């Protein structure tokens, strides 16, 4: 009797395990396909649509890899010099420090070129503002190229130390400011662009819906729906206008300002997503 009970228990347990494994597998597969659409990598690469920016992003990624390797070598040789204190170990540390400074400058030059290319391609930034920022980016690139020449010409640790101080204390703050100014304009213009397109699609949808014959009740429902969408659009428009004005008048761009801007833009992003949901819903009603 006990044996029979145990066998039955094993059969039931086996079935539960099989059922759980199978349903788990199907849920995972569904999750993968649902999450599909656009992966983070695709979104990242889709941003760079032109041949120029695609070439630059590949170069930037390659240079960044080289930088990481050079940084590891520099850290090792610096530690060896601190431990041994010999002329030979100092020589290796000096050579590696010059190498990493050159690679760092290369990464930054390509980064600024990529920023400039992206800004040129962006739609939604005012032309005057865009040209002003592009001029500053070009200046940053020039400064980086000039300091690269100075680094390459430095032969001893004193000369390398001097040029490095100029780079880190004077040039980097300027680079930060211009880069975050550009990023601020890009991030706002991206959402402005989506907002403008959304308004166009909404207007077309309204025209399409007006052409269809509906009952009085449906007409009333639609009018209420339009009121909601119009209110959501007006709210996003006000938020975007305030943020754009802030970016235009700001004088000190840095990481902190940029983060605050991103936080404010999250509201706009949420508002736009809501408007799109409304539009999708309205569009579906046109087929009923």
């Amino acid at each position, binding site marked *: 009797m006990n044996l029979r009970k145990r066998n039955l228990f094993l059969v*039931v347990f086996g079935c539960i395990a099989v059922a759980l494994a199978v349903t788990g597998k199907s849920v995972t597969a569904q999750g993968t396909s649902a999450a599909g659409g656009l992966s983070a990598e695709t979104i990242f690469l889709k941003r760079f649509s032109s041949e120029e920016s695609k070439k630059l992003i590949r170069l930037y990624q390659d240079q*960044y890899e080289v930088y990481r390797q050079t940084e590891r070598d520099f850290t090792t040789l610096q530690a060896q010099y601190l431990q041994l204190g010999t002329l030979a170990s100092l020589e290796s540390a*000096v050579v590696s420090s010059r190498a990493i400074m050159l690679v760092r400058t290369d990464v930054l030059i390509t*980064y600024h070129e990529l920023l400039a290319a992206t800004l040129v391609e962006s739609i939604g930034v005012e032309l005057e503002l865009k040209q002003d920022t592009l001029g500053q980016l070009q200046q940053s690139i020039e400064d980086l190229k000039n300091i690269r020449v100075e680094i390459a010409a430095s032969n001893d*640790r004193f000369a390398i*130390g001097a040029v490095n101080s100029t780079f880190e204390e004077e040039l*980097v703050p300027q680079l930060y400011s211009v880069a975050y100014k550009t990023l601020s304009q890009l991030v706002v213009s991206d959402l402005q*662009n989506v907002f403008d397109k959304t308004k166009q699609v909404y207007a077309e949808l309204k025209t399409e819906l007006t052409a269809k014959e509906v009952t009085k009740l449906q007409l009333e429902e639609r009018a209420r729906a339009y009121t909601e969408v119009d209110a959501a659009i007006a709210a996003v428009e006000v938020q975007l206008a305030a943020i754009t004005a802030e970016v235009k008048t700001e004088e000190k761009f840095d990481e902190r300002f940029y983060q605050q801007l991103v936080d404010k833009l999250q509201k706009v992003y949420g508002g736009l997503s809501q408007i*799109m949901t409304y539009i999708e819903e309205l*569009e579906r009603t046109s087929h009923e």
Partner: protein
Amino acid sequence: MNRRDDGDQSRFALEEPLFESNKPMVEEVPVLELTEAQLSAKKKKKVLKLAGLVFGVAILLLIAISALAPKKNEIPNVGTEPEKAPLVEKTQLQLRIDDLRTDLRQADPNKQPLLFPPLNYKLGITTNE
């Protein structure tokens, strides 16, 4: 009196009676005979338990089979026309709304791909001096 009390330990092993048990005797519980009605009720209970188990196993098997069986609308027929039909049926406006969704995902302010490069901005040779 304990046999060890006289101090002669050699006698203990020899004189100990074999298989002597000091345990108290367990009283036998009289087996009660079950009546006909009790026996049939017990049998019925056993059958019910068994039926319940079989039913449970059958349900679990059904769940497993239904999860394994491919759903009609999920059969991937690469290159066949009916698969592409729903995409073709989308109106121009629906396609534009889809594009808008994609544009919005790309414009997510938290996913800006061009943040300032995370490099070491405090380089320089540290000396022992």
